[in-house]
C-alpha cells in the first residue's frame, strides 16, 4: 500500500469493514477526515444533532445486523453522542462511534472543544480507544469492528485526535489479536444435554426469548424447537418478532405490560428456557417470586448475565443459534398437552383488548390499522405508551422489524432510528410510532430525512401529555399530573413537517385514520401523521411496580377521570364535540 494520511487510513478501514454509509456531523478537528470523505464513495448522512447520528447508526445496525457507524467532532459533538451510545450499550447493538479529539499535544490542557470522551463513555461502551498515532489506525479499527459485532455485541468508541488524522503512515491490515477477548460461542455439550433432558421432562415448559435470539439469527432454530416440543414462547421487548405472534404457540410479550397469559404461563411453568434474555426488572416483576415453580435453563453468550439477577439451574454459555441447534438434536417431538390447552384457554379468556370508540381515536386502533395496511413494515418506536401499544397491538413476525430502545428507554430514539433503518433497508416501509412528547426530542432530523430523501413515516399518537408518566400519576399519585401535561405547548405537527419540506397529515376522528395511513404509505416523502388520540387512554394490562407477574391488572379506562386537564389541546376540543360522526 502507498503512504496515506491517518484520515485516508480511517476511510480505507471503513471500506474494508464493508461500511457504505456513516452518520455524522463535522467540526473543527474533523476537517481532515471530512476532507478525505469528500473524495470517498462512502455515503455520509449529515445529521442535525449528533444524538441523531448515534441513533441512526443504531437503527441501521438493528435493521441490518451490520455494524453501524457514527461520527461526531470533539467536545460537544462527542458528548451529544452519549445518549445514543448508552442506548446501544443497554440493548447490545453493534456500533462504532468515531469522535474527533483535539491534537495529542493539547490533550489535558482544556483546549477548545476538548472533552475526555473515552472517560465519559467508559461505563457505556464495550471497549474504547484513544488513538495516539496514525500507525495504530488499521489495528484499532479492525479490533473495534470485531469487538462491536462478536460475542455479545455492543458499542465501541474510537477517539481520533486531529494530528493523528494528518500524520502520514503506511497502511497494512493486521489480523485481530486480542488475548483478553475470546468470546465463547460454542455451548458446552454436557450442559446442552442436561438442559435438553430437563426440557424433555417438562410438563409446563415456557420459552422466554430476548434480543439475543435476534442478534444470533436464531429465530428459525427457536421456531423449530418450540414446534417440536409444543412449547409456548414469550418474548421480551427486545425479543419482539423473534417468534411469529400470530402463531398458536405465541404468548406475545411478557412483563410489566405483557399479556396476562404470558405472565400466568411464566408463573405456572415448571421449566423456563431463557434464550438471550437477561431477566430485566421490567420483565420479572418482583424477582423473589418470578417463575417460582420453574427450573431455569439460561442460554446466553455473555457468562456475566447468568446468575446476575436470578438463580439459574442449568447455565448454557454460548451462541443462541448453536445452543438451540444442539437442543434440537437432543430432544424428541412432544405432543400437545394439557398445558397447551390451559394456555389456549387463558388466551381466550384474557386477550389484549381495549374499548373501541366511534368518536375518539384510540391509539390501539391506530396501531391495528397500521398493521393491517403495512404488515411488513419495520416499526421503530419512541418510549412510553406509544412503545408499549406498538409492541402489543402490531402483530410482529420478523425479528429485525421491531426496533425500540428497551434497556435505556430513550425518548427521541425512534425517529432517527427509523432513518437509519431505512438507509439499511431502503425497500422496506419504515414507520416510527411516536408520542408527541418523544417525537420533539429529535424532530430536527426531519431536515436530515428531507435533504437526503429518506422517506420514513412517523405516526404520532398525540395525547397532549407525557402519557406513561401521566398514567403512573393517575394510578399511584392520586392524579396529580405534575409536569406531564404538554397541551398547547406542543407545536402543530402538520405545520412542523411542512416547515421542513416533509408531508404532514392529521386525523382527529377514527374514520380519518385509515385514509391518513393510506396517504402516508403512498407518499414518497418523509411523512408525519398526527393522530389526535384519547388523552385518557392507559396501557393495559399492567404489573404494578414491585408486584409479581401473577398480579397483573387490567386497568379501568377511567372514563370518570377529570378531563378538564386536557381541554384546549389542539383539535381535541373538536373531537370531544363530535357526537354526530357515528
Amino acid at each position, binding site marked *: 500500500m502507498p503512504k496515506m494520511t491517518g484520515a485516508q487510513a480511517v476511510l480505507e478501514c471503513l471500506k474494508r469493514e464493508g461500511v457504505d454509509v456513516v452518520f455524522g456531523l463535522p467540526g473543527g478537528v474533523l476537517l481532515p477526515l471530512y476532507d478525505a470523505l469528500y473524495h470517498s464513495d462512502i455515503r455520509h448522512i449529515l445529521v442535525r444533532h449528533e444524538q441523531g447520528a448515534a441513533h441512526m447508526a443504531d437503527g441501521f445496525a438493528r435493521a441490518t445486523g451490520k455494524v453501524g457507524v457514527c461520527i461526531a467532532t470533539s467536545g460537544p459533538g462527542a458528548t451529544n453522542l452519549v445518549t445514543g451510545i448508552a442506548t446501544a450499550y443497554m440493548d447490545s447493538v453493534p456500533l462504532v462511534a468515531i469522535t474527533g479529539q483535539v491534537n495529542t499535544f493539547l490533550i489535558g490542557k482544556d483546549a477548545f472543544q476538548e472533552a475526555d470522551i*473515552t*472517560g465519559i463513555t*467508559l*461505563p457505556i461502551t*464495550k*471497549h474504547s480507544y*484513544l488513538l495516539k498515532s496514525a500507525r495504530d489506525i488499521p489495528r484499532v479499527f479492525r479490533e473495534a469492528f470485531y*469487538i462491536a459485532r462478536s460475542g455479545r455485541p455492543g458499542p465501541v468508541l474510537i477517539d481520533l485526535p486531529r494530528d493523528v488524522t494528518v500524520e502520514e503512515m503506511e497502511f497494512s491490515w493486521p489480523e485481530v489479536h*486480542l*488475548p*483478553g*477477548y475470546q468470546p465463547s460461542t460454542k455451548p458446552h455439550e454436557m450442559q446442552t444435554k442436561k438442559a435438553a433432558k430437563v426440557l424433555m421432562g417438562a410438563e409446563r415448559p415456557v420459552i422466554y426469548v430476548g434480543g439475543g435470539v435476534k442478534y444470533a439469527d436464531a429465530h428459525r432454530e427457536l421456531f423449530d424447537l418450540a414446534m417440536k416440543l409444543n412449547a409456548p414462547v414469550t418474548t421480551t421487548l427486545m425479543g419482539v418478532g423473534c417468534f411469529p405472534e400470530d402463531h398458536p404457540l405465541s404468548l406475545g410479550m411478557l412483563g410489566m405490560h405483557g399479556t396476562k397469559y404470558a405472565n400466568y404461563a411464566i408463573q405456572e411453568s415448571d421449566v423456563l428456557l431463557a434464550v438471550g434474555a437477561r431477566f430485566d426488572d421490567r420483565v420479572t416483576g418482583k424477582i423473589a417470586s418470578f417463575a417460582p415453580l420453574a427450573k431455569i435453563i439460561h442460554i446466553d453468550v*455473555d*457468562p*456475566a448475565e447468568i*446468575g*446476575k439477577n436470578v438463580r439459574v439451574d442449568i447455565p448454557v454459555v454460548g451462541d443462541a443459534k448453536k445452543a438451540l441447534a444442539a437442543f434440537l438434536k437432543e430432544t424428541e417431538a412432544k405432543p400437545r398437552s394439557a398445558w397447551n390447552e390451559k394456555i389456549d384457554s387463558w388466551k381466550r379468556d384474557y386477550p389484549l383488548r381495549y374499548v373501541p370508540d366511534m368518536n375518539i381515536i384510540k391509539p390501539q386502533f391506530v396501531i391495528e390499522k397500521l398493521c393491517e395496511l403495512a404488515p411488513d413494515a419495520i416499526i421503530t418506536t419512541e418510549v412510553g405508551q406509544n412503545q408499549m401499544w406498538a409492541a402489543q397491538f402490531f402483530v410482529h413476525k420478523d425479528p429485525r422489524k421491531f426496533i425500540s430502545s428497551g434497556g435505556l428507554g430513550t425518548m427521541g430514539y425512534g425517529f432517527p432510528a427509523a432513518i437509519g433503518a431505512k438507509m439499511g433497508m431502503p425497500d422496506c416501509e419504515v414507520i416510527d410510532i411516536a408520542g408527541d412528547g418523544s417525537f420533539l426530542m429529535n424532530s430536527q432530523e426531519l431536515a436530515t430525512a428531507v435533504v437526503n430523501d429518506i422517506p420514513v413515516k412517523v405516526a404520532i399518537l398525540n395525547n397532549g401529555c407525557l402519557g406513561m408518566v401521566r398514567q403512573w400519576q393517575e394510578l399511584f399519585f392520586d392524579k396529580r399530573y405534575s409536569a406531564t401535561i404538554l397541551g398547547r405547548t406542543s407545536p402543530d405537527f402538520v405545520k412542523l413537517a411542512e416547515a421542513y419540506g416533509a408531508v404532514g397529515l392529521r386525523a382527529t376522528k377514527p374514520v380519518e385514520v385509515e385514509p391518513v395511513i393510506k396517504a402516508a404509505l403512498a407518499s414518497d416523502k418523509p411523512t408525519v401523521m398526527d393522530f389526535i388520540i384519547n388523552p385518557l387512554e392507559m396501557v393495559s394490562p399492567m404489573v404494578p411496580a414491585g408486584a409479581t407477574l401473577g398480579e397483573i391488572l387490567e386497568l379501568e379506562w377511567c372514563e370518570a377521570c377529570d378531563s378538564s386537564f386536557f381541554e384546549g389541546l389542539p383539535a381535541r376540543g373538536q373531537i370531544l364535540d363530535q357526537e354526530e360522526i357515528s
Partner: protein
Amino acid sequence: MKHTIAVIVENKSGVLTRIAGLFSRRAFNIDSLSVGATDNPDYSRMTLTVMGGEEVLEQVIKQLSKLINVIRVSELNPAESVERELAIIKVNADRENRSEIMQVVDIFRAKIIDVSARSMIIEITGDEEKINAIVQLLRQYGIKEMARTGKVSMARGLKSTQP
C-alpha cells in the same frame, strides 16, 4: 466475606480506570488494590481484595473477565496461597523510647530504614494481620504517617494465574 482476586491485565493506559470504573458502576466493594509489573512487559498484575458473598464474587470475576484488556482472573483461596503486604511507618521516636521501639521491630522481624532525632521509619512485610498487629503496638508512640501497599498474593505450588 473477603476474597482475594489476582488479575492479569494488558499493560496499557486506562486499564486501571476501567477496573476502578467497573467496581463503582456495579457497586462492588473494593477493599484493597495493588498493581505492578510481571516478568512479561506486556502484562501487569493486580491483586484485589473484595468484600461480598459468593454471588458478588462470581459477578466480580465475570465482569472483570469481560473487559477486553483483562487477560485472566482467578480467585486465590487463602489456604492455598501466600500473601504479603508491605508497610512503611513513621513513628515518633526520641532518646527515651528509641530502644523500646527497636525491640518491637525486632520481635516482628521488621526493619528500621530511617532515623532522625525525633522519628524513625519502620519497614515491615507480612500478611495483613501481622501488619495490623505492629501498627497497633506502634500507636502508643504516635504514628506520624503510614503507607501500605495493599496485598499481593500468589497460589502455592505449580498453579499459575499468569498465562
